[in-house]
């Protein structure tokens, strides 16, 4: 079984700051981390490999420093990593990103399964996984909380929904996206990390994946961000209760009663 796990390097959102003048995210000097949901995807792939054998490849698209997230993947059990990095990929929206990743998956060849985290915490779109499936014309299972069975021809998975779950069987090759409930990712070890540091990670350019330049980067992205604004705050005046507890609580209940809320 050959499994590709798509991973993304994202800004640690706790650090995200907005430049008050330009209203843009300050990306310089910001901490970057592996998208947390992708760690579940890697763990799911490694567990499948441990159970039925095969190879796990971590794939990312991004600037050269994104090689770190691939090493993180190798640290916890992936066999190798590939980075898509080229100016031509710059400015990609989810359409162009999923196209580039699907081309890389075709280039790798003989892939049975692609696993993605359910979404990335910077964009929160959850569109790239199904987008890859669509570009490849493969079936998909999204929000997977449990892989019940997997063999060379099919995968049976539980998909999480707001109101419960369903159990579906998809033919392989397929794309799945996974939620946190699926597993508990192993904590990386120093031994694993030292081994990962030594591995060469190839960097593929647009030409290496036989991609149509019209479908890459800004060219291939139907959507455009036209402006960004800070979120609007509430325009109400707060009542601050900082006296003795009994007094504050009495006043609070009074506020609620005045509004017939209790």
């Amino acid at each position, binding site marked *: 079984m050959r499994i590709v796990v798509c991973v993304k390097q994202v800004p640690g959102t706790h650090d995200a700051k*907005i430049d008050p003048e330009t209203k843009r995210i300050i990306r310089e000097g910001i901490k970057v981390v592996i998208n947390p949901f992708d760690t579940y995807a890697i763990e799911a792939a490694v567990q499948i490999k441990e159970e039925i054998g095969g190879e796990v490849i971590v794939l990312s698209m991004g600037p050269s420093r994104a090689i770190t997230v691939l090493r993180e993947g190798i640290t916890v059990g992936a066999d190798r990593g590939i980075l898509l990095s080229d100016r031509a990929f710059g400015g990609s929206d989810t359409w162009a990103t*999923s196209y580039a990743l699907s081309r890389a998956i075709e280039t790798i060849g003989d892939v049975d399964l692609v696993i993605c985290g359910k979404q990335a915490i910077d964009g929160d779109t959850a569109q790239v996984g*199904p987008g890859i499936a669509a570009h490849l014309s493969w079936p998909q299972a999204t929000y997977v909380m449990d892989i019940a069975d997997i063999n060379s021809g099919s995968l049976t998975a539980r998909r999480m929904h707001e*109101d419960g779950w369903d159990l*579906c069987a998809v033919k392989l090759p397929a794309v799945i996206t996974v939620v946190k409930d699926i597993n508990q990712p192993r904590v990386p070890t120093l031994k694993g990390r030292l081994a990962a540091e030594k591995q060469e990670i190839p960097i593929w350019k647009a030409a290496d994946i036989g991609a149509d330049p019209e479908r890459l980067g800004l060219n291939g992205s139907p959507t455009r961000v036209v402006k*960004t604004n800070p979120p609007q705050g509430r325009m109400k005046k707060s009542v601050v209760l900082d006296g003795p507890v009994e007094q*504050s609580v009495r006043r609070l209940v009074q506020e609620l009663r005045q509004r017939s809320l*209790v």
Partner: protein
Amino acid sequence: MLTNNAEAREEYRNIWVVAEVLAGEIQKVTYELLGAARGLAEARGSEVWCVVLGNQISSQVDALFHGGADVALVVDDPSFMNFVDEDQATVLTRLIRTHKPEVVLCGATTRGRALIPRVAVDANCGLTADCTGLSIDPENGDLLQTRPAFGGNILATIRCSNHRPQMATVRPRVMNELPVDTSRTGRVITGKLEADEAGGLKQILKVFQDSENSVNLADARFIIAGGRGLKGADGFKMLKDLAERVHGAVGASRAAVDSGWVPYYHQVGQTGQTVQATVYFACGISGQIQHLVGMQSCDFIIAIDRNPDTPLMQLADVAVVGDLFEIIPQLIKEISRT
């Protein structure tokens, strides 16, 4: 479809809503989207269409008209009893090619977010996820799509000028339903599933509806939410006690969920649920922006924290400064007194 000149764009008309059908019922989010679509259609001088892919769904189309649809495009087929996203995407893409809508809206639910990206790729058009605002640019008629990005730290406005249709998913409970107007009627267009459209790539083996385990934060009038300040699972017992007395639900910040104090389905915020309660109690939640985007549209917000300067204390209508381990028991006592 690539439509990089005005003439090509002219061919695309009408605002579509893709209905969310669950266990044979059209879901509330569909009516919310019809409400949003109505405004857009008026701005464009076009119609609202609701596309329904379902099984034995025809009896519900009147409700779609009452909720704002002009046209119901219904494909009623037993194979739509369950959610086979690949087949639904194939049918939807064909319908889009045939009828050329200008805008396609879909609920940002687990099903919508699985289905629509496939359609966007197949139909070669742009898709914006989780929009919180939709409007029409008066200059050129483009759909302006506003969505939170970077964990809600900014609101991005996105447009898609050269592709049609313009597609967006919208979170449940963000848009408002129209008042039900039983005098409204509309046209029904009946579509069908073509022979080659059931791809056989996916089989649904079992469906489980989990009503017991779900915490109904979405419909709760009162939400009592806790964060890191509760210091542990024990703190949440106190919140549960308070919640029971006001018939509310217990919510939590991501920090509390990540610490293992409460299960994930209590989580409010960007990566949890968006809530719109009448009263939101935030107990020991500092108010990371990711949390705020999930609860800031609650009507009346009360925050309890010993630090008066946290973002949530600043946002709250009533900010109670002090030790929540003293305040909440006292509050329980005070509320129970009457």
